[in-house]
């Protein structure tokens, strides 16, 4: 292939223009300048191509070379991805550290996978077999707990001519050839902006369990669904995303730190390798891939980082795994779009964002889903099903949800977990506002919860929702006339709602016993609270004063239930419930 090479004619921040680029394609990678910085073509005007550069462009002269690379931004997929920490364009950060030290230089390149490591390959296909994209050639144990299935790349098909036997191979060695001469290795490349193919999208009827009470009970999303977590600074977006990464029921987690803090990532890198995966007991890092492009790393690579992340997620989805991708924060991605768009002098839409923001957002969120994976269906095998669940943090300026990124994301994401600065100020964490948040998956998940969650899950959920709703109404009255003017029954509503907020909706991320709440603990805790509420109601009706209920030590016992470990929770709760019933009975007798 004749290299297309041109010369720089304009440099403006991360945007460059080069002449003599006839034949270069939209989205194609280019190497810019003597340093060979990576860039992506984003506009073509005759022989002039405009590109966004993934690294800082200062120090460059006009006339320096720009060389087309022949392919769009692609990442390499194969065994060895798990446990890695990449930058936005899939360079392993640990390798960059080896070549350039503690600060990241420009123009570096590094292999995305370890090309020397040998993997124990077990073939699953045979010579003469007809294969198509997605079919397994074999598998390697990527970690102690997870088999990495080596697939025929999407779009490739044919009859297997040769395939290696069980043995150890590197990712670059040919493991199979097809009749037409195609050589297959354990890896293949995929352009990040192109969604990986699947057969069809499936209905979403299994929950994405997060271990966070307020989410699992009030606003659950489905495996393959998507949710956004918008909130002003300091409301706890990052903590929510990290808690979900630690405890959710997905097989694999892709965590994208897009334009966020370096120290936060240091925290993740320090903490996660020490954490145990609740599903397997192995290190949590073994089921994670981190994509890190901190805010001071180049802006164009930030734009690429979310696509890199989601492509990694789709790749494991295609192997039939359930994958969760956390994007923190999608606003930084949108801002990167805005910055590039403004340098291209495009006509701005709302708040300076490009008019294609909504299209790009929708395309991105639509890459989530529960799917029938590609691959041949054989007898007795109904085909693989994988899911990719997407949780995107949104950082609205001034915490104002009417801004374009929040609004566009709301239209496409099925879950809306709104973080509230007022709750965060009183250290109510997770600061998820129960009045504003919603989930569109509730109806689809109804039957799953009825069959699999503790009895009374949906009923107690409704009771709690009603109580919180009633509380909101009464608070408005209190703001006008004061709590003293309310009836005792109404004041009980306020007190019980406070208890639900403090005991149930709040969850201490830093407590070993409370950081994770199993479905059992969640279901039984709300049941205990709703029972307590009902008992208090009847005690009030039997003539007991509210004051004597509130000052009874049993109230504290019930609220301290939250501190108990999920292990053995149910028995301990039963004991407290019995004591509670007896205590209220005592009060009734005294009053009578």
């Amino acid at each position, binding site marked *: 292939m004749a290299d297309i090479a041109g010369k720089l*004619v*304009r*440099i*403006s921040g991360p945007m460059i*223009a080069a002449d003599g680029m006839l034949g270069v394609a939209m989205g194609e990678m280019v190497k810019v300048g003597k340093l060979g910085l990576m860039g992506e073509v984003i506009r073509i005007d005759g022989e002039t191509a405009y590109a966004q550069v993934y690294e800082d*462009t*200062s*120090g*460059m002269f*006009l*006339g320096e070379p720009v060389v087309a690379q022949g392919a769009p931004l692609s990442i390499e997929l194969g065994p060895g991805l798990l446990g890695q*920490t990449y930058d936005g364009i899939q360079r392993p*950060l*640990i390798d960059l*550290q080896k070549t*350039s*030290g*503690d*600060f*990241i*230089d420009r123009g570096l390149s590094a292999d995305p996978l370890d090309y020397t490591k040998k993997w124990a390959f077990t073939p699953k296909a045979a010579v003469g077999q007809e294969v198509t994209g997605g079919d397994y050639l074999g598998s390697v144990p990527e970690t102690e707990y997870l088999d990495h299935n080596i697939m025929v790349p999407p779009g490739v098909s044919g009859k297997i001519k040769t395939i290696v036997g069980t043995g150890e191979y590197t990712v670059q060695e040919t493991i199979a050839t097809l009749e037409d001469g195609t050589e297959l290795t354990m890896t293949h490349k995929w352009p990040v902006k192109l969604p990986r193919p699947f057969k069809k999208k499936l209905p979403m009827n299994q929950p994405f369990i997060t271990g966070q009470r307020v989410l699992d009970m009030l606003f659950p999303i489905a495996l393959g669904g998507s949710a956004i977590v918008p909130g*002003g*600074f*300091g409301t706890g977006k990052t903590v929510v995303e990290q808690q979900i990464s630690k405890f959710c029921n997905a097989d694999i987690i892709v965590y994208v*730190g897009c334009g966020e*803090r*370096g*120290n*936060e*990532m*240091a*925290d993740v*890198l*320090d903490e996660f390798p020490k954490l145990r995966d609740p599903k397997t007991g192995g290190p949590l890092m073994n089921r994670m891939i981190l994509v890190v492009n*901190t*805010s001071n*790393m180049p*802006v164009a690579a930030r734009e690429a980082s979310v696509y890199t992340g989601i492509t990694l997620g789709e790749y494991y989805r295609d192997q039939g795994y359930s994958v969760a991708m956390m994007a923190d924060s999608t606003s*930084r991605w949108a801002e990167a779009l*805005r*910055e590039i768009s*403004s340098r291209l002098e495009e006509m701005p839409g709302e708040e*300076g964002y490009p008019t294609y923001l909504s299209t790009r957002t929708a395309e991105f969120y639509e890459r989530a889903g529960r799917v029938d994976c590609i691959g041949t269906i054989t007898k007795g095998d109904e085909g693989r099903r994988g899911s990719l669940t997407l949780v995107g943090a949104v950082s609205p*300026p*001034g915490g*104002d949800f009417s801004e374009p990124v929040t609004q566009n994301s709301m239209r496409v994401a099925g879950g809306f977990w709104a973080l509230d600065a007022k709750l*965060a*100020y*009183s*250290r109510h964490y997770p600061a998820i506002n129960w009045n504003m948040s919603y989930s569109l998956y509730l109806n689809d998940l109804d039957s799953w919860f009825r069959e699999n969650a503790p009895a009374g899950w949906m009923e107690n959920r409704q009771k709690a929702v009603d109580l919180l709703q009633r509380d909101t109404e009464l608070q408005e009255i209190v*703001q006008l006339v*004061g*709590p*003293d003017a309310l009836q005792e029954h109404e004041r009980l509503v306020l007190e019980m709602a406070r208890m639900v907020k403090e*005991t149930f909706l709040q969850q201490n991320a*830093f407590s070993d016993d409370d950081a994770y709440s199993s479905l059992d603990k969640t279901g039984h805790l709300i049941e205990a609270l709703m029972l307590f509420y009902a008992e208090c109601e009847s005690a009030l009706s039997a003539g007991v004063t509210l004051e004597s209920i*509130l000052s009874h030590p049993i109230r*504290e016992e019930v*609220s*301290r239930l939250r501190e108990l470990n999920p292990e053995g929770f149910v028995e301990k709760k039963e004991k407290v419930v019995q004591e509670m019933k007896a205590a209220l009975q005592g009060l009734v007798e005294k009053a009578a």
Partner: protein
Amino acid sequence: MAESGLLQKEYWDLTYITGPLVFLKNGGRFPTGAILNLTMENGEVRQGQVLEVTTDHAVVQVLQGTVGIDIKGTAVSLKNEGARIACSKDVIGRVFNGIGQPIDGLAPIVAEEERSILGAAINPVSRNKPNDFIETGISVIDGFNTLVRGQKLPVFSGAGLPANELANMIVQQAQVRGEDEDFVVVFAAMGLTSREADYFTRSFEEGGQGQRVVAFMNKADDPVIERLFAPRSALTIAEYLAFDKDYQVLVILTDMTSYCEALRQISSAREEIPGRRGYPGYMYTDLSTIYERAGRIHGKKGSVTQIPILTMPDDDITHPIPDLTGYITEGQIVLGRSLHRQNVFPPVDLLPCLSRLMNNGIGEGRTTAWHREWSNQLYASYARGRDVRKLMAIVGEDALTPMDKNYLNFTVSFETNMVGQGFTRRTIEETFDIGWKLMGLLPKTELTRISRETVDEFYQETKPEDFK
């Protein structure tokens, strides 16, 4: 790299001047980011930086302003391929302008090394988690929003609020317990009035800090472009001292509002599409290249801790400057006007304050095992008390329940005794004791944020009179 003017070719290329920018005819002569000398007819030399190059033109921002520059008689030559600063241990105790030239009348610095002031991003895998508790002696910080080494914790102030005094208090009092290490303050003043600059200089002298301060002064009447360079010069020196010379560096950046306004001024002169309130769309990225230059690195002894100070226009925390800052920094200390009016010092409005790295600095072996619970309980109770106070303003004290009144008492005592410590230094233990005493104003059963054993150990009922 050559400084000598002899070898440098001069060009008479100017075509267009607007605001702080000049345009040159041919963009191919200089690289982006280069520093140019502009020699005027009267012999005066100014510096400019190349922002953008195309085949038609180059855009140059002039550091000292464009007044007096004419198209006909001004010559342009290359000074340096990029903005650089001389690094050496000798900078300690010296005063520089925003672009790193000494302004204290002493000799220029003999550089051990010259570095680009742009810096490079610290590789996230090289970062060491910040976890050394810095005792500032200020209750609202130590007890509730703990500062740790390597953190960036800004102070959000309003016009007329004593942010400078608070920053000075931190500089004077801060120490890591049980350690006596080489400690340096790097001070970058951006758009500071002479009075404010004077306050800091004097305080550093009086507190005996003069010999361990490096100051970069860009006053309100100094060239606006130098304001964009001042924090970067300061942080380049800070990184050098921390990661090459093992110093513990505390960087004070004040006032970031002036910095952002300078950024907006340049952006509008370049006729860029404005974002919120006229600030450029890339302000987040720009600010992050300043704030992210804080932290610790594996295997290095030193650290860079940042305390940027900014003034919230009209006390509005949703204004783009505090907003974008809050999204990058690891928390914020917010000053409140009503506390200031009540003569509470430091007038810190605790509710919107946050330290994201608090957990790394506290707990067993650092402060105490129950520090987090203690802080959460006081926070929650104070927040509830503030709600009650608001309610009382509407419905009157009589309409409150007895419990609400407890919270009201608690809140009043909290503000005078915990927050309003005056200009004294408190150890963390003293802060804890005051907190337990305050919790004594509430019934024991209300303290559900703290484990029962801890409450049993420390709780003692108190009365409002005990605080007189």
